[in-house]
């Protein structure tokens, strides 16, 4: 079923290299660039196929951009294509981050460095907190289901429960809720 040969592995590598290297701000910021590169420029995928792959990559766990690279790479050039797309996507980011990490080791005693980061730290907390409210809207939060995020928050922040257990509980809870609704719907 794979359309092997639709793209050369080095073309996949190069496309995802550009996508990974030139987007700052995480995986979702890459979507417009991916669409332009994969659908419009290279014409490897139809817009519909692209939207399908996008939906699945968002639903699965893990790094969204890497999931995209895996799907697109496999589709166009099998396993080798997937590996080429993934490495292309994350190579430059890893090198740049490692550059920063090693430099910071030497700079951390510098008073100016510390001064800059003293200003940045509260900003980072705000940048994590602000999207929470938009996400709440997207998640269709209401008075009836608002207890779910509140309980998750209390479990993790106040009671120190591992975030992974909370995610697992959400999956099980969602499954049971779905089954329950299905059964009710079947009877009436």
């Amino acid at each position, binding site marked *: 079923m794979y359309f092997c040969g639709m793209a050369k592995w080095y073309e996949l590598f190069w496309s995802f290299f550009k996508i990974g290297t030139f987007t700052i701000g995480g995986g979702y910021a890459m979507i417009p660039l991916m669409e332009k590169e994969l659908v419009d420029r290279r014409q490897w995928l139809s817009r519909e196929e692209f939207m399908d792959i996008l939906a699945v990559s968002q639903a*699965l766990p893990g790094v969204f951009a890497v999931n995209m690279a895996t799907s697109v790479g496999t589709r166009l050039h099998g396993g080798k294509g997937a590996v080429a797309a993934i490495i292309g996507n994350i190579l430059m980011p890893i090198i740049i981050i490692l550059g920063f990490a090693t430099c910071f080791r030497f700079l951390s005693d510098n008073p100016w460095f510390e001064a800059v980061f003293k200003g940045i730290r509260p900003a980072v907390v705000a940048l994590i907190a602000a999207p929470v409210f938009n996400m709440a809207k997207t998640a269709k939060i209401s008075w009836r289901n608002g207890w779910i995020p509140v309980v998750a928050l209390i479990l993790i922040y106040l009671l120190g429960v591992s975030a992974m257990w909370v995610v697992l509980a959400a999956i099980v809870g969602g499954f049971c809720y779905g089954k329950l609704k299905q059964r009710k719907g079947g009877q009436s």
Partner: protein
Amino acid sequence: MIFLRLFFSFLRIGIFSFGGGLAMIALIQNEVVVKQGWLTAQEFTDVVATSQITPGPVGINTATYVGYTAVVNAGYSQGLGIAGAFLASFAVILIPLILTLLVSRFLLKHKDNPIIANIMYVLRLTIVGLIAAAALLMVTPDTFGTLKDVPMQFIASVVIFLAVFVASFKFKTSPILLILLSGATGALIYGLLPLAVGC
């Protein structure tokens, strides 16, 4: 053995990180700062700042930086730190990669399945709480200062927090610009101001 623990920690993070980069940051913080204690809250905040202003997926950037820092903090060399960085990044993508190969066809076929839709619905709500908890866990004396010991820093931190929050939430200002601006503010308040007052 730090490498083995690093590998399994990030393997777990990869399995449970639904819902994008911020959710993954929350999980990494929970595992690396709260549970394993490899990084302090302050170090982790610096990692997040850096991964927001450099290119690439935030999840990969954070995994790379944490892998490096955790190994070097444990007393190993820089070279082994780089190995730790690659290991963490590899571990975090491994299981999602296998899942993508195995179940993407199945998911696509059943994307309107009510059970899957309900799981995603509850997950999205839970992730809101998860990320809110991560933001709260980042507010420590390390990152904000305290009103008692360093009142000036605490007040400045609260002002920066509020300004960035409003700019990001209301005006959708780019995070890169906000981080650069707050860095400049930090240099001004904590670097230049003491010099000027000292003169």
